[in-house]
């Protein structure tokens, strides 16, 4: 007898889910996470209301805070799209993290190779392409293993995150690679070469608000993905393969090829994020910084909260970016450093819990007279 039936409830699949649930459930999950988070804060004798108020102010309301939020949101936007597009076809790409690193390696590599004399738009364009290609190559591995050898992509893509992280560390800390700065202080303290000024991505100053090029690129890509999914032949195949793989085969589609293509698309998106990270913000391949950020994993939270809708990913990444940004700003003796991570975890937890409510109804067995 299952635990659920012992406590007198059972989950029944819903026949249809009303439209309002598409937004109501994530919103409620988000607030439920804040509620549980406030319990955590109370335990650590913090006032939850004032903490949340400070997050709201430092993440969104204070002057200049939104510009910082956009910086935090940009990588999340790309890794969120990476997870959303892959999960939609049932390819559980946990490897956004590693694909992000490889994108950063490729993008910084091409920027350094082109050198200071390259025209800015060529350098930036080359980084965009290189980042996407790097991420796609990295995701191609779990993609092809899953599609043709039935390997579990969750495990392979996750393991490749470590490979990519160790690879990036090797390039900077354990070898005299092309990426590593060998002159000046770099000879003593290992660090990456700074990419030339011409390869650094622009940010657009709108008075009080600074919008990084990477965020705009991500928003455009999100709209493009939406059109791709809803309006194109490939999008149609993605939806059939994702929802009904044996139907796809029956209709003469090639599910294996679709999966590999989606895996590469997904990896390319994470790789773009890596390129944006180097181009827009760090200007250097920084393996330690990348691995501490965990953008790839946070992207899974973004995608889940956005219910895998690319347009929603844009907004969710800005909200989570705001929380992250506020976390950086507020970190100190009276603001626990782990709080933002805790909140993110709670949000994912509550979102997945909410997802159960979207798919299933809770049935009270006792009221139905079923002996539990």
């Amino acid at each position: 007898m299952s635990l659920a039936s012992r406590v007198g409830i059972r989950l029944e699949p819903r026949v249809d889910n009303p439209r309002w649930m598409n937004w109501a459930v994530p919103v409620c999950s988000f607030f439920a996470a804040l509620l549980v988070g406030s319990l955590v804060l109370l335990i650590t004798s913090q006032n939850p209301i004032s903490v949340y108020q400070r997050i709201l102010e430092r993440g969104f309301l204070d002057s200049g805070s939104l510009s910082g939020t956009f910086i935090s949101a940009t990588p999340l936007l790309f890794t969120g799209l990476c997870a959303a597009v892959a999960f939609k076809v049932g390819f559980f790409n946990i490897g956004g993290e590693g694909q992000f690193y490889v994108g950063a390696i490729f993008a910084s590599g091409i920027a350094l190779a082109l050198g200071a004399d390259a025209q800015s738009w060529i350098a930036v364009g080359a980084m965009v392409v290189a980042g996407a290609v790097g991420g796609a190559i990295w995701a191609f591995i779990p993609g092809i293993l899953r599609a043709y050898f039935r390997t579990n992509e969750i495990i392979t893509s996750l393991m490749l995150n470590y490979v990519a992280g160790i690879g990036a560390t090797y390039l900077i800390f354990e070898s005299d690679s092309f990426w590593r700065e060998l002159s000046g202080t770099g000879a003593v303290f290992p660090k990456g070469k700074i990419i030339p000024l011409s390869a650094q991505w622009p940010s657009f100053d709108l008075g009080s608000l600074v919008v990084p090029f990477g965020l705009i690129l991500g928003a455009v890509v999100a709209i493009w993905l939406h059109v791709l999914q809803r309006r194109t032949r490939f999008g149609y195949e993605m939806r059939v393969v994702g929802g009904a793989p044996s139907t796809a085969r029956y209709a003469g589609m090639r599910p294996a090829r679709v999966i590999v293509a989606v895996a590469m698309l997904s990896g390319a998106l994470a790789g773009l994020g890596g390129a944006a990270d180097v181009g827009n913000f760090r200007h250097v391949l920084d393996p330690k910084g990348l691995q501490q950020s965990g953008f790839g994993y946070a992207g899974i939270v973004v995608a889940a909260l956005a219910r895998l809708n690319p347009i929603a990913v844009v907004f969710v990444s800005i909200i989570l970016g705001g929380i992250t940004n506020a976390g950086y700003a507020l970190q100190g003796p009276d603001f626990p450093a782990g709080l933002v991570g805790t909140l993110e975890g709670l949000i994912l937890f509550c979102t997945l819990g909410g997802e159960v409510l979207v798919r299933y109804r809770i049935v009270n067995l006792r009221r139905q007279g079923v002996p539990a």
Partner: protein
Amino acid sequence: MTTDVDTKAVTAPAVAAFGVSKRFPGVIANDDVNFDVRVGEVHALLGENGAGKTTLSNILTGLYRPDGGYLELSGQRVSFDSPRDAIDAGIGMVHQHFRLIPTFTVAENIALGAAQGGERILLDMAAVERRIAELGEQFELSVDPRARIWQLSVGEQQRVEILKVLYREARILIMDEPTAVLTPLEADALSQTLTSLTRQGRSVIFISHKLGEVISIADRITVLRQGRSVETIDAAGATRESLAAVMVGREVELVERRGVGALPGAPLVLSVGELSADGDRGLPALRSVSLDVRGGEIVAVAGVAGNGQRELVEVLAGLRPRTAGRIEVDGEVLDRADARHPIRMGVAYVPQDRLGTGLAPDLSIAENLVLKRYRRPPVSRPPFLRSSVIDAEADVLMEQFDVRAPSSQTPTRRLSGGNVQKVLLAREMSGRPKVLVVSTPTQGLDIGAVATVHQLLLDAAAEGVGVLLVSEDLDEVLALADRVVVMYEGSVTGVVEAADATIASLGVLMGGGSSEDVA
């Protein structure tokens, strides 16, 4: 008092339901159900899917408690708090899907769960085997108690299930669609078993939606419709038509083949020669099968499920590689195991698993209707799909095939079984096929939908399409087919003209007999 009860028990029905009701949120599964089963009677509960048969049997076996009404056993009011109570009261359930452990012996399976806890540590298997042998003799249910389940045929496994409930001293046996998995010969044997059971004072509740078999097997029939018990009828005077009318609540015209057959000079649209293929486990499942279908003809493939029919249609649909043999569609050779190839050559295919293989359940009706045409104009204009064309075509097809849904944008998972099948047939026929392969097209549909689907198949044939109908339902096969190909263990055991076919003759072939055995 005791004597009073005893005399009552002699005349009182074995089981009776009085006003039994059961509600689920949004559904009334049982609504004031009344019926009584006499001692020594086979009593059928007849109804369509969703009529409340399963809920009622769950109430009888103590799995649900009724919201209203009550049950009486031998005149005494009972209330079951758990399945255990129902078993102790002498009610036993013979499930449609057997609950047996394949690697255990018959005796071990029967002893499993029957032993009351705490009596003794060691099971006396010899005693169990003796008891099984006795029961087998008493009720003419011969099974070797030491045989392992995997060694037994489906019919024998069912006997084990029956012995299992008899071993627990059930006096009332509930059988849920017991013939669904049996060949006609095995069904005959089951019918004899039922006679033997009832002669010795056992009562049987026989749950079914098949009109023919309830008339031949049951003594009386209680018809359920929309959760209510509509009428209890003596099987002796009932006909399929009269029962269907009670079951559906209106007159139903059961479709019959008008005996047209292939049009004169009709082309050979499908020719299969010596086709062999392996099953999912890599063992030969299709052995050298040959058959022909002409335009306008309905050829049925009859057989008990799992005798190679699935492999046959999957090879035809390009979903399974063949190991040998030849397929020609309208004179052209079909030689690749690739679903696109048969689609292009005009082989339409309605699979058995309609929602899981035939449709994408989360996609709309309109999107599902172009599932096989989305790669070509006018639907496709690379890289886009033209939703205006898709929606316009959907409206036409839904009108033409009478698909009932709120709109063409409704996801197909929300449709009823009959409408799902209409969407599938609409899509397959819209591709202007030469051959239409349909696999168990009416399984699980209600009678009204069955008649509609049968009519659509006859219409397809009338348009000159060659129809290959794979079905386990012999009533359906005899009603529609011009010719019947019988399969057993992957081979064709006989090809019979519909005019010469009877359930009995097909039954022999379905059990592996040859045409000589029929004659």
